[in-house]
C-alpha cells in the first residue's frame, strides 16, 4: 500500500534521526487509574509533516502497561508492553514503527506521560491534565487523552510470553 510505504518512510527518517530530547521540563503531578483503558489521539509531527495516530493504553497495577498504536483506519502500527519492572517487550512492530524505534522512543514517551519516569529525562509538557506535548529533536508528539475507562484489564494483556498477535 503506497500510503503505508510512504508513511513509514517519513517515520523512519524521524526514527533514525531522533537522538536526544531538547530539554527536560519541570513536571506536574498527574493522576491515572492504576487499572484501566486510556484512549488517546495524537498528532505526530516529523520534518514539518503531520500524521494522526490513535493510542489504546491498558494499565495494570501489577502487570504494567500495554500500548497499541493504530493509524486512522485501524491498522496496528505498534504494540508494546512495559512491565512493572520497566522491562520493554515489543509485541508487534510495523514498517512505520520498527522494533528499535518502539523500544527506544515509544516506550520512553509512554513512561514519560504515564509512568514513573516523570522526574527523569522527559521532554514532556503538560498543557492540561488530558493534553501533553512531547518535544524531541526530530519529532513532536501532541497527545490528548480522550477517554479513560477505569477497571481491571485482561491479565493476558500483560503476559510477555503470550503468543504475539
Amino acid at each position, binding site marked *: 500500500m503506497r*500510503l503505508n510505504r510512504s508513511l513509514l518512510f517519513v517515520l523512519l527518517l524521524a526514527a533514525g534521526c531522533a537522538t536526544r530530547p531538547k530539554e527536560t521540563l519541570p513536571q506536574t503531578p498527574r493522576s491515572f487509574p492504576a487499572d484501566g483503558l486510556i484512549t488517546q489521539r495524537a498528532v505526530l509531527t516529523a520534518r514539518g*509533516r*503531520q500524521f494522526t495516530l490513535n493510542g489504546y493504553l491498558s494499565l495494570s497495577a501489577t502487570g504494567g502497561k500495554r500500548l497499541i498504536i493504530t493509524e486512522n483506519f*485501524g*491498522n496496528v502500527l505498534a504494540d508494546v508492553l512495559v512491565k512493572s519492572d520497566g522491562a520493554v517487550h515489543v509485541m508487534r512492530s510495523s514498517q512505520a514503527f520498527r522494533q528499535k524505534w518502539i523500544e527506544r522512543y515509544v516506550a520512553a514517551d509512554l513512561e514519560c506521560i504515564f509512568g514513573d519516569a516523570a522526574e527523569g529525562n522527559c521532554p514532556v509538557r503538560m498543557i492540561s491534565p488530558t493534553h501533553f506535548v512531547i518535544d524531541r529533536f526530530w519529532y513532536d508528539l501532541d497527545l490528548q487523552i480522550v477517554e479513560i475507562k477505569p477497571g481491571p484489564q485482561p491479565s493476558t*494483556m500483560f503476559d510477555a510470553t503470550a503468543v504475539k498477535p
Partner: protein
Amino acid sequence: MKKLVVPLAMISLAALAVAADSALQPVSNPGPILDDLQRKMSSLRSVHLEFTQERHLKLFTEPLKSEGVMLMERPNQIRWETTAPYQSILLGNDKSVAQFERTDGQWKKLKLGFPEMLKRVMEQMSLMHQGKVDALTRDFTVSVATGAVAVVTLVPKDKSVREMLASLEIRMQPDLSATREVVMNEPSGEFTKIIFRRERRDVKFPPGTFDQTKPTDIAAVKAAAGNAP
C-alpha cells in the same frame, strides 16, 4: 441459570450469524449486479451517513469504537468526520485533501504527510459508495455473493497490500439500495467494521460543508440532513 442463558444466547447469535453468511450464494458473473448497483447509485446527488467504526483486536474483549459522519456530494466531494471519542475531519475531492483536528476547543488544519496517498484512499471510498465498483478493478479482484445481504468483496491484487488487508467487504441491502457495513479483514483475523446508519439522500448541504480551509460545523450539516428524505 443466568450463567447458562448468556452463553446460550451468544451461541444462538453466533449460529444466526453463521447461518446468514452461509446462506450467501456466490455469483458466478458479478458484472450484471455491479451494473445494477452503479445504475441505482447514479441518481444519488448526495448522501449523509452516520457510522460506528469498530476495531476488533484479539487482545480486547470488546471492540474499540469510534463514531462519526460520512458525507458525499457528486461529483467528487467527500467528508469523513469522526465525532467521538475525538474530533477529526478528513476532506477530499479530485484535486486535494485536507485534515483538521480539534484540540482544546480549536480546529487545527494539519500539514499532511502524504496528501496524495490519502487522496487515493478518499477516492476509493467515494467510488465504493457511488457504486462504481468496476472502477476499482485495477487494484482489486471483485466478487459478489447474494442472500440475506448482498456482499461485494474486494481482494487486493498487490501482494504487499494483501499482507495488511486480506479483503474488503461491502455489505449492502439485498436490493443494493444502501450500504450497511464495510468490513476490512486482515490476514491475522483482526478486522475493522464500519456500520452505517441514518442514511439521508439528496441532502442540500450548507455552503462550506466540503471547504478545505474552514469547513462548516457538523451541527449545521446535520441540521440540513435532518430536512432531507
